[in-house]
């Protein structure tokens, strides 16, 4: 049998992992099956990160690892040796919320709040991705257009599409992101359709 297995065989599938979470060093002994999400919630009492589907579909479990947002439910804790993880609990500075948290409150970027920690981690990572000029479906060749681009609403929606909000707070989430990203805090305005517009809408 392989050396690496024999060493642990009396402990049946235990692993050890040391990583940094919200600027604190942590060392854990875990069942090898533990996801990063379960390690946070069940072993470190960091319940801010949410489990929606546990399957990669919803984004509620999004954390920022080594500067990149990823799904903690599809990350084995065992693979996080030496990693630097930032969760929703690590965003505020003492009593001062992260600007993205403040903007979500201001623009009412949630209803039940379950998807919110994932949405905010995703949005915070997106701020950096926009600065770095990362490519996307909407703007494929972002890097040649400009660094530090101002994302359009379509861009923001596309780039946050990995985070599902069952309450449908998307409009306000986009608004919150816009304010932090480009100081655009203009509220959307709504007008009743004219009779003509109503007629042509029906025909479609």
């Amino acid at each position, binding site marked *: 049998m392989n050396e690496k297995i024999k060493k642990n065989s009396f402990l049946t599938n235990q692993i050890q992992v040391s990583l940094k979470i919200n600027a604190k060093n942590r060392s854990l002994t875990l069942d*090898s099956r533990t996801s990063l999400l379960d390690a946070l919630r069940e072993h470190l009492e960091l319940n801010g990160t949410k489990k929606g589907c546990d399957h990669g579909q919803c984004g509620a479990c999004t954390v920022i690892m080594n500067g990149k947002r990823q799904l903690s439910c599809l990350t*084995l804790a065992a693979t996080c040796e030496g990693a630097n993880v930032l969760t929703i609990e690590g965003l505020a500075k003492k009593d001062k919320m992260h600007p993205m948290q403040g903007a979500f409150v201001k623009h009412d970027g949630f209803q039940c709040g379950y998807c919110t920690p994932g949405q905010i981690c995703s949005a915070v990572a*997106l701020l950096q991705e926009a600065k770095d000029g990362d490519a996307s479906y909407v703007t494929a060749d972002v890097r040649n257009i400009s660094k530090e681009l101002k994302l359009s609403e379509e861009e923001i929606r596309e780039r946050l599409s990995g985070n599902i909000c069952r309450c449908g707070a998307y409009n306000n989430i986009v608004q919150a992101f816009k304010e932090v990203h480009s100081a655009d805090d203009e509220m959307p305005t709504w007008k009743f359709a004219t009779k003509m517009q109503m007629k042509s809408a029906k025909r479609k």
Partner: protein
Amino acid sequence: MIPAKFDYIKATSISEAVNLLDEHGFDAKILSGGQSLLPAMKLRLNRPEIVIDINGIPGMNSIEETGDEVIIGANCTHTQILNSDMVYKTVNILHQAVTTLGDVQVRNRGTIGGSLAHADPSADYPAVVLACNAQIEVEGKGGKRTIAATDFFQGIFTTALEDDEIVTAVRFPKVAHGKYLKFYQSASRFAIVGVAVVFDDSKVKVGITGVSDTPYRATAVEEAYTGNGDAAEHAVDGIEVMSDHFADENYRSHLAKVMVKRALEE
């Protein structure tokens, strides 16, 4: 949702990973991005006793250019490929496909090697590697070999890889002009139909994913091509078309023809 018990091993070299696969055979599974393997293990569709993490293996996550090829390490993430200027300029069709793949979180972790080895019938890369005539580099107990994309996919979740082999890199010939078009399944964003067309003077190469349980080169379209979209009629000639609750056989066949036509007319 917790997977069945397994031992986790972080491999530090390709030969270590290959030896472990050879030793444990069917009981062992390679872990790269985990974006397909972990969901399958949580549902206990896969119950490996040994999980071999290949992420730390040096030299498997670079993108390099040689003369007329771009070589992409198997451990390159979708995001790495998406943000590569070299890929954008020399294999743009690959770039196009990755813009449609999953979402940012999935792209930050999932890898090209993992996607090819997984051989999901709705995955995006297969159409592109087929249309580009890419070469898949693999290594096993018996050494290295190269598998042409056209020989690689053998059925649903089935490839030409032997039990002791891993994908180490993918070699793409530089492609001046190509188009990837995808009709999304609107919730998962996997392809119901994905079409990759590479234009080469008066000829085309067409790779199709999502339509059959094995991605394929639409040779009937290639032979009938005369510079316009008419050859799209032949998109599913001789192909057994999948049926599921998103799209039945007739609808899928129709979609395949429409998407091929649009791609050919680009």
